[in-house]
């Protein structure tokens, strides 16, 4: 899904027409406010954003989105861009900064790249949320054991720390590996790493 935010109706509709002609679906918005209120589909998507807009402008909106932690690929379009504007947008993670009038190939290339990027984001997000739900199914004791195992302690040391026998620790550890779906200790460490990075 391609979201288009441009206050000029003729540009908005022309973009819609072009995207439709190449088989892409678009949703049109007049302002960033309208866009942020809208319901978004759960599918790879990207945002085509005009810089000069009524209310919050495109660059400010990009900043807001970034601060809220949402990863949304943005393609900027503007009639009067300059170097500082472009570099600000690109530094903040924009996919592309296109000057109006832009050529079809530039725009489509940027859109395909953005959609690819969003697909990867979404895959990562899905994996992490799956990991998290598995982690949340562990008992609190198992979570403790997992935390200590992944810091590199052996069963004996974990038992000493938690006041458990080595055998009990071993059982907990086996359950953790099973519930988390980890094939090896290395797997489990990687999972814990990803969970912590996102938490």
């Amino acid at each position: 899904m391609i979201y288009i935010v441009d206050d000029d109706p003729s540009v908005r509709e022309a973009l819609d027409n072009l995207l439709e002609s190449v088989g892409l679906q678009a949703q049109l918005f007049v302002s960033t406010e309208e866009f942020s209120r809208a319901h978004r589909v759960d599918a790879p998507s990207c945002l085509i954003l005009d810089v000069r807009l009524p209310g919050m402008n495109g660059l400010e909106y990009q900043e807001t989105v970034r601060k809220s932690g949402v990863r949304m690929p943005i393609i900027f379009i503007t009639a009067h861009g300059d170097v500082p504007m472009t570099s600000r947008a690109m530094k903040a993670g924009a996919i592309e900064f296109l000057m109006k009038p832009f050529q079809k190939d530039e725009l489509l290339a940027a859109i395909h790249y953005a959609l690819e990027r969003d697909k990867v984001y979404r895959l990562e997000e899905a994996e992490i949320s799956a990991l998290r739900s598995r982690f949340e199914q562990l008992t609190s004791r198992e979570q403790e054991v997992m935390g200590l195992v992944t810091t590199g302690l052996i069963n004996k040391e974990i038992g000493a720390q938690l006041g458990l026998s080595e055998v009990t620790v071993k059982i907990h550890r086996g359950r953790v590996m099973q519930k988390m779906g980890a094939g090896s200790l290395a797997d489990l460490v990687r999972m814990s790493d990803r969970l912590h990075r996102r938490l």
Partner: protein
Amino acid sequence: MSTTIKRNHYVALRYGIATASVATAFTFTLLLQPLFPYPFLFLFLVAVMISAWFSGTVAGLFAVLVSTVLVDYFFVPPAHSFRISTTAEGYFAAFIACALVASWVSSLKKKSEDALKDALDRLEIRVSERTAELMKTQADLAHLSQVLSMGELTASIAHEINQPLTAVVTHGHACVEWLSANPPNLEKTRQTINRIIEDGSRAGAILGRVRSLFKKEAPEKSWVDIGDVIHEMTLFLREEAIRRRVSIRTDIVPGLPRVKADRVQLQQVVLNLMTNAMDALSDASENSRKLMVAARADRAAVYVRVEDSGVGIGADFKDKIFNPFFTTKPHGVGLGLAISRSIIDAHEGRIWADSCPGGGTTFQFTLPLQSSET
């Protein structure tokens, strides 16, 4: 008739003031005299001064005369006679001398005061005249600077034009896609082309608005000496020319007939052509940056020529340079010549360019002479 009455009235007032002040002095002196062992004459001096101040030298002398008579008769011993005792002779003479001096000094002072006031008034009138002149010049300059600093305005115009243009290009791409589908989607193609027509017309409408923006609603036509306009603009651009190391030469045939025209608009045209010429010279070597403005006339029209020694323009540009938004300058707007042409058109004149690459460019415009200026 009425002036004579007024004048008589004025003279009467003057002598009235003199008489009244002397009478007042006399009354008070009579009242005060018993208190003093000698003739108390100072109030008469005051009366003389007042008379001279408010009513002039003659009335002052009149007051001196009346005072002298009164003093002689009433106060100088022996009293109630015009005779003067020998002991009082010196005293009386001193009084007369003092009265004369007081009258003279007072009227002199009054005269200089009046002259000063008069000068101040005249100065004030001149200041207000000059202020009005300056305000007019400032208004003219404001109009000029409006034309000069169109940069910001053009940025917004460019934005306005760019939107429909973007739509047209994007629809164009879509059109190609709809046509290359298998089978071609003719319905979508037709819709898209209609959109293109709409957006193209919108861009045209924006340009129309811009054009009307630069057309002054009612040109204020007056008799204008084009030579004056050229001199003014040469002065106006002198600093800029020095900064850019351009030497400006003018060749204006003396005694050019004046034309009925909007002065500010002609200033704009001359200014546009001259700044264009200076821009064209920026690539020329420093000692060959020459700009020449010439004016001459025949029976039908006045001819103005602005010539630069710059790089010149190709023949293919010659037809386009007067079109709005056509420019060869990196940061050019492409409105200067378009505006100039619309102004010259409005004056029923012609404007054109002659140029050969490497040989500089000459812009010329004509302003037709009206049948008569008497």
